[in-house]
């Protein structure tokens, strides 16, 4: 995995709360057997009209959204299904971070394993971001710090090990495999 350290980008705002993984990537697109190409189906039912043309009212289709790598969303982003296709679709589209006041457990874990930063902020910071779409924000993973264009800077919680792996491009499976001797000992003890 490529190391992730800093994300500096404009934001795109989807203010809805409880955006579930069925919205992020509807189930009918889960018949793929690879991780690639899901970006075109990201938020498909909000992004495209019934005839397949882009819905001009949807945030991702506005001209100012082009090239933005940070998604700001309402409370409890990523709830519902465990489909890892959700962070795959967000990453394939070009997002590198998602900011909300709450991020659902499984989605958060899946995101960290793929290099998408799940960033939980307090209510006032979230409100400012929701009210200022297109704001230029800076995310410093090393310092676990989000800086707004106002100069206001807040730290965000991030699990220490996941942060270490992201900063150094370490695949968690490699670390887990380094514990095989412990796993073998555990299995042997269970068998007796």
């Amino acid at each position, binding site marked *: 995995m490529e190391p992730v350290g800093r994300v500096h980008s404009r934001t795109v705002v989807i203010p809805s709360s409880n955006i579930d993984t069925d919205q992020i990537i509807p189930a009918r697109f889960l018949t793929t057997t690879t991780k690639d190409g899901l970006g075109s189906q990201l938020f498909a039912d909000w992004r495209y009209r019934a005839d397949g043309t882009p819905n001009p009212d949807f945030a991702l289709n506005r001209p100012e959204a082009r090239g933005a790598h940070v998604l700001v969303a309402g409370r409890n982003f990523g709830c519902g299904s465990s489909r890892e296709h959700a962070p795959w679709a967000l990453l394939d589209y070009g997002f590198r971070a998602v900011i909300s006041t709450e991020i659902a457990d499984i989605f958060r874990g899946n995101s960290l394993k793929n290099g998408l930063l799940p960033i939980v902020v307090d209510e006032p910071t979230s409100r400012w971001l929701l009210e200022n779409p297109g704001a230029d924000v800076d995310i410093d993973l090393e310092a676990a710090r989000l800086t707004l264009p106002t100069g206001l800077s807040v730290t965000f919680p991030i699990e220490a090990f996941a942060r270490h792996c992201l900063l150094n491009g370490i695949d968690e499976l490699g670390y887990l*495999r380094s514990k095989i001797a412990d796993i073998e000992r555990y299995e042997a003890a269970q068998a007796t």
Partner: protein
Amino acid sequence: MGARTLFDKVWAAHEVVAETPDTPAVLYIDLHLIHEVTSPQAFSVLKGLKLPVRRPDRTLATMDHSTPTSTEQVFGNVPIKVDAAARQVRQLEQNAAEFGVELFGMRDSRRGIVHVISPELGATQPGMTIVCGDSHTSTHGAFGALAFGIGTTEVGHVFATQSLLQRKPKTFAVNVEGRLRPGVTAKDLILAVIGKIGVSGGTGHVFEYRGSAIRALSMDERMTVCNMSIEAGARAGMIAPDDITFAYLEGKPRAPKGVAWNTALARWRMLATDTGAEFDAALDIDASSLEPMITYGTNPGMVLPIGATIPDNAGDVIFDKALRYMGFHGGDAMLGKPVDVVFIGSCTNGRLADLQAAAHILKDRKVAPGVHLLIVPGSQTIKREAEAAGYAEIFKAAGADWRESGCSMCLGMNGDTVGAGQYSISTSNRNFEGRQGVGARTLLASPFTAAASAVRGRITDPREML
């Protein structure tokens, strides 16, 4: 050692390496369930690294999400209608053969929804850690297992090491005392819990459902409750195993036998939460106050007693958006609203007790003209049991569409979908926008409520028909 919860005991027994401030715990996984949708990319990782599945003997595969439910496509010569789904099915067959994983394939008499067949086989047992690339893995917590959904990267981790890196979650006691009244089911109970806690109220926690109302539930009902823990944001939901659990498991094909059964029983009886053990959070619910519940919005927390009216939160943009999607208005009564489709099935309510409840309502009655009632058993075993018990005949006589097992219309991956703008009363677990088909409007309810509403063609309080 001080008083411990059920969760604490199961967690501690599976810690290969304890967590530190810098590193998560290495948690051993006893049982890994896989299906066709979230496993292909994990098998690809193994192939890339030239690694085997470390413990195929602790891995069970089936196909459920994208599989057809029409008998002609499952058993006949009609090909699977959805091409990509057919590819996924073939890929799982190839992967299972290549890696030596036991597969309950398309025509296997034991196939079914992954969370239905594992308990049915007796593979799900108290005190186990169980994972699957599916959020409704929480179902298995009904047996006192720690069971949770994982992503595909983690499916790969379990393939390669039979372990996962995990931070220890917090505990949350959901205390339900009293008795459910007639016509009020386990589904209504869990919908009420989600209504109270909210769809993110359980984030970071593992629920333990406790109290006299929980103890009185059958295993089928306990599975319904634990199944929807994830809809309150909880990673898992657990119920301490007791004599009801043991009676369910005894004699199941993969349950321990003979001396091993007695040893297991002694171990399982130690799992219940100790008196005085503390939880990080708690909620108390009076079961006797509950009514049949129905959702009115676009997440399972937007739920009401069936006789209630939709709240009027005009001006709340997100609430208004949900009602607009549903075609409802603040102040509307739920009772009497028209219904187009009724779906009875899923890992939430596709077990025999659920079909029995539906049959109880549908006996000597007909589905209302213009309503499509789709009944999909949770497994092929349940299908046979429902046929032997006469339920299938009742369904067919009522005009219902009786199918082969699978996830089906719960998420509409296999082509079983609800049309845009149509109203569907569904016994499944998610009423998200488009969950059952693009533009579909889903109302979650119990099998009683679903069956009663199918008969009247309108949202109906099932207690009028019991």
